[in-house]
């Protein structure tokens, strides 16, 4: 992945500004000389810095990860497919244009107001899409570790959340992906331009991580299982690491959510269920149906950095 045209243009600009700097240096008029040297010199330095940042960004884009691939063959039982279909709703915001199953892929730039960073698709995950020739182990690695079949990092993929999926759940998800109706064809490969590479270097979208062993979900129906669901649903993206809430302070990152440790303890179970069934709050009012996918604002706002993830625990 390399934007040869963009890099060529910026090299031409560096050469031009460098030439103008030397020309200005030879001027006899002191004001023109120093004005020209400062302006053209600054432009030369800025262009050079942009080139270096972009080249490092392209290096990151092409970096390969050798996370091991599990030797797993998903059976695809009816129960797995049903469970996987339920979980696949976590993927619709990015992998479905109409935010409905099946996961036939999305042109992210068309669905969301992206800056012009290049070609960015959430791939078609149906049997006629992009993962047809992937092994089940490769798909599981992509979901939980954010690593493409070719070893590159899957940009924007919220693997830091999905790495919490249990072995059973991630296999159910794969079973569902394989069972979807073939819809459309493979989406184009993602290709970042010079601006995309620059942004990538200012942010860190590497999601590739090395998990330690498998994950087992807690006993269903328990509070521990509730925590498991909170973790795989990515609630902490918007509500904070301790679910203490976030404020919209203009900083890059996911949309801010309220303090759940303050709100939910005051709700009854019925109120909680009513909220998720209708969007209606116990005190009146409703919560709008946000459609912003996790990670999106971080791409649009390149200042955000993902912190390295801690080792995964069983």
């Amino acid at each position: 992945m390399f934007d040869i045209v963009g890099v060529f243009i910026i090299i031409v600009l560096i050469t031009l500004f460098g030439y103008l700097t030397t020309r200005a240096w030879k001027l006899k008029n002191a004001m023109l000389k120093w004005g020209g040297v400062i302006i053209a010199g600054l432009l030369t330095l800025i262009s050079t810095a942009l080139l270096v940042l972009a080249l490092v960004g392209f290096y990151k884009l092409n970096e390969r990860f050798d996370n091991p691939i599990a030797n797993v063959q998903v059976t695809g039982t009816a129960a797995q497919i049903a469970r996987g279909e339920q979980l696949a709703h976590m993927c619709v915001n990015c992998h479905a244009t109409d935010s409905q199953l099946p996961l036939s892929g999305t042109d992210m730039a068309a669905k969301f107001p992206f800056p012009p960073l290049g070609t960015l698709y959430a791939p078609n995950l149906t049997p006629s899409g992009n993962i047809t020739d992937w092994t089940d182990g490769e798909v599981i690695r992509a979901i939980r570790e954010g690593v493409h079949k070719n070893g590159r990092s899957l940009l924007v993929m919220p693997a830091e959340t999905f790495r919490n999926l249990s072995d059973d759940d991630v296999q159910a998800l794969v079973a569902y992906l394989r069972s979807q109706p073939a819809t459309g064809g493979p989406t184009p490969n993602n290709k970042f331009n010079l601006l995309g590479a620059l942004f990538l270097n200012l942010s860190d979208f590497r999601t590739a991580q090395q998990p330690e062993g498998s994950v087992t979900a807690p006993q269903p129906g328990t509070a521990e299982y509730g925590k498991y669901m909170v973790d795989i649903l990515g609630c902490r993206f918007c509500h904070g690491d301790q679910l203490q809430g976030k404020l919209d302070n203009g900083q890059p990152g996911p949309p801010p959510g309220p303090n759940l440790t303050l709100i939910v303890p005051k709700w009854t179970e019925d109120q909680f269920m009513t909220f998720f069934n209708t969007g209606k709050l116990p005190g009146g009012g409703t919560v709008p149906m946000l459609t912003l996918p996790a990670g999106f604002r971080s791409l649009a706002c390149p200042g955000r950095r993902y912190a390295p993830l801690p080792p995964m625990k069983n």
Partner: protein
Amino acid sequence: MPWPTVRAATTDEELMAMYAYLHNLPLVEGPAK
């Protein structure tokens, strides 16, 4: 994740388990407005 997505991705039993977890969380001071 938007609440309709959470609803679609969970069963009633899972939502109730989430409630059991969230309802018993100790208060953590959030960011001041």
